[in-house]
């Protein structure tokens, strides 16, 4: 059976070149980077080279990069670290209703601890408005955290403008750039960000490693205590092979970004056109300001998990924002924040394309999809034949 992977927003396949660079650091170069002997120095040098590569990719300085176990940790480190560092200055944090849980839930946790948290609404496309940020800022605001691109619907936020606003007000500005790296240009100066999170496995690197960009002069409190690694901000013996993999992966991710993105966008557009040609379907996310590989559609009258399983039986991997797949009783908070009704949210499907996808992959999905939809609709008590 043909296998088609269209869930690159969840994770990606490790690039062979990346693996090749990592392997020696799992075997012969196994030293602890904190050791002074040759073994340690070898590992330390590899980490510093990876730091240079990450910095170069982001337009940052090497000393502004802190390696973490992924974006979840980078996001927690940011929000908790800033909240604690600037507690004297204020207690107000601004974020959006469509953030990943690693930001969203961390802000809610701080709210429980007494912080004042503003969760900005989004429009029907999942977009945060710059004016809404401006209006929300107060004298007590100590952090604004808005994602660069949404992981479910791919909407790209006006980060540079929000960043400019925050800079004028002297407020640290963080963006979760997990979904953006390798898909759209990400430069910390162009985006006016002070902190930025990323995770290697979203751009053909290994899982369990990521980084936080921390602009020089930005204050952050220590969150975990331990050794002196990563300027004490992220103590613990480094994931050397993972960090090496991250360095190589980001170098490759930003190389030839535009042609890669254009090719993926063309495939995505073809998939979009084909799927929206099925009756009673709807595009979720911004029609233009959207990641090139993202396609989120709602298939009305059917439920997302049933769709995913049916597609999986045909070898196609994608995801959904339905309650059954979110692990809770509610559909995705992102789709709900965009104002979708329950049925539309339950019937959502996210296809996320990557560098290995081909035209044949798309043709195959478009070939099997109509029958799957028709079969599930024929079972659905809310579907009345062709009529809405």
């Amino acid at each position, binding site marked *: 059976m043909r296998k088609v992977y269209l869930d690159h927003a969840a994770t990606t396949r490790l690039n062979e070149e990346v693996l090749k660079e990592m392997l020696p650091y799992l075997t012969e170069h196994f030293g602890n980077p904190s050791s002074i002997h040759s073994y340690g120095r070898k590992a330390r040098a590899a980490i510093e080279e990876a730091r240079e590569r990450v910095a170069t990719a982001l337009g940052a300085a090497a000393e502004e990069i802190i390696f973490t176990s992924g974006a979840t940790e980078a996001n927690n480190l940011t929000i908790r670290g800033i909240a604690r560092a600037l507690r004297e200055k204020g207690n107000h944090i601004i974020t959006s209703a469509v953030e990943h849980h690693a930001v969203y839930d961390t802000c809610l946790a701080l709210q429980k601890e007494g912080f004042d948290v503003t969760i900005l609404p989004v429009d029907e496309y999942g977009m945060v408005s710059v004016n809404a940020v401006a209006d929300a800022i107060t004298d007590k605001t100590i952090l604004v955290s808005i994602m660069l691109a949404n992981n479910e619907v791919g909407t790209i936020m006006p980060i540079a403008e929000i960043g400019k606003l925050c800079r004028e007000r002297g407020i640290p500005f963080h963006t979760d750039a997990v979904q953006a790296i390798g898909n759209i240009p990400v430069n910390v100066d162009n985006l006016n960000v002070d902190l930025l999170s990323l995770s290697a496995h979203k751009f053909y690197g290994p899982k369990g490693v990521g980084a936080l960009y921390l602009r020089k002069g930005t204050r952050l409190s220590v969150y975990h205590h331990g050794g002196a690694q990563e300027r004490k901000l992220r103590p613990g013996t480094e994931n050397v092979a993972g960090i090496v993999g991250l360095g190589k992966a980001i170098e490759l991710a930003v190389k030839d970004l535009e042609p890669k993105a254009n090719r993926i966008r063309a495939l995505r557009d073809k998939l979009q056109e084909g799927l929206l040609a099925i009756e009673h379907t709807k595009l979720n996310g911004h029609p233009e300001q959207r990641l090139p590989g993202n396609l989120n559609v709602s298939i009305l*009258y*059917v*439920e997302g*998990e*049933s769709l995913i*399983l049916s597609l999986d*039986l045909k070898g196609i991997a994608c995801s959904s924002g*339905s*309650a*059954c797949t979110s*692990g809770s*009783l509610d*559909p995705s908070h992102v789709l709900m924040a965009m104002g979708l*009704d*329950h*049925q539309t949210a*339950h019937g959502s499907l996210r296809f996320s394309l990557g560098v290995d996808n081909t035209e044949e992959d798309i043709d195959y999905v478009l070939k099997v999809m109509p029958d799957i939809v028709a079969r599930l609709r*024929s*079972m*659905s*008590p*809310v*579907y009345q034949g062709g009529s809405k």
Partner: protein
Amino acid sequence: MYTEQVMDHFTNPRNVGEIKDANGVGEVGNMKCGDIMRIYLKVNEDEVIEDIKFRTFGCAAAIATSSKITEMVKGKSISDALKVTNKQVAEELGGLPAPKMHCSNLAADALKKAIENYQANRAKQR
């Protein structure tokens, strides 16, 4: 995550559809949680379920439990059918993932509603 039995009923559901001259119809669930099950019954003079069909909006567990219960009670008396519980349906399918036990395991409730609807229809006729 699903048993073979669940996948079998999901991919080849038994008794899908409507009964045009049904004498009992029951629906449970709501769009908020993402599961709606509707069961149609044709109960004969002897109070035996002669025919049963379903339509379900929901995940694989919702579809499989609907399908399974139609198989379990077809040809049974309504008093026997009323004894079937959601738990039994899940057991017959080799179990369901824990989170699905609450939200998508409603087939026995839908059947009960359909039988009650049949009984109410009967009472009206008398």
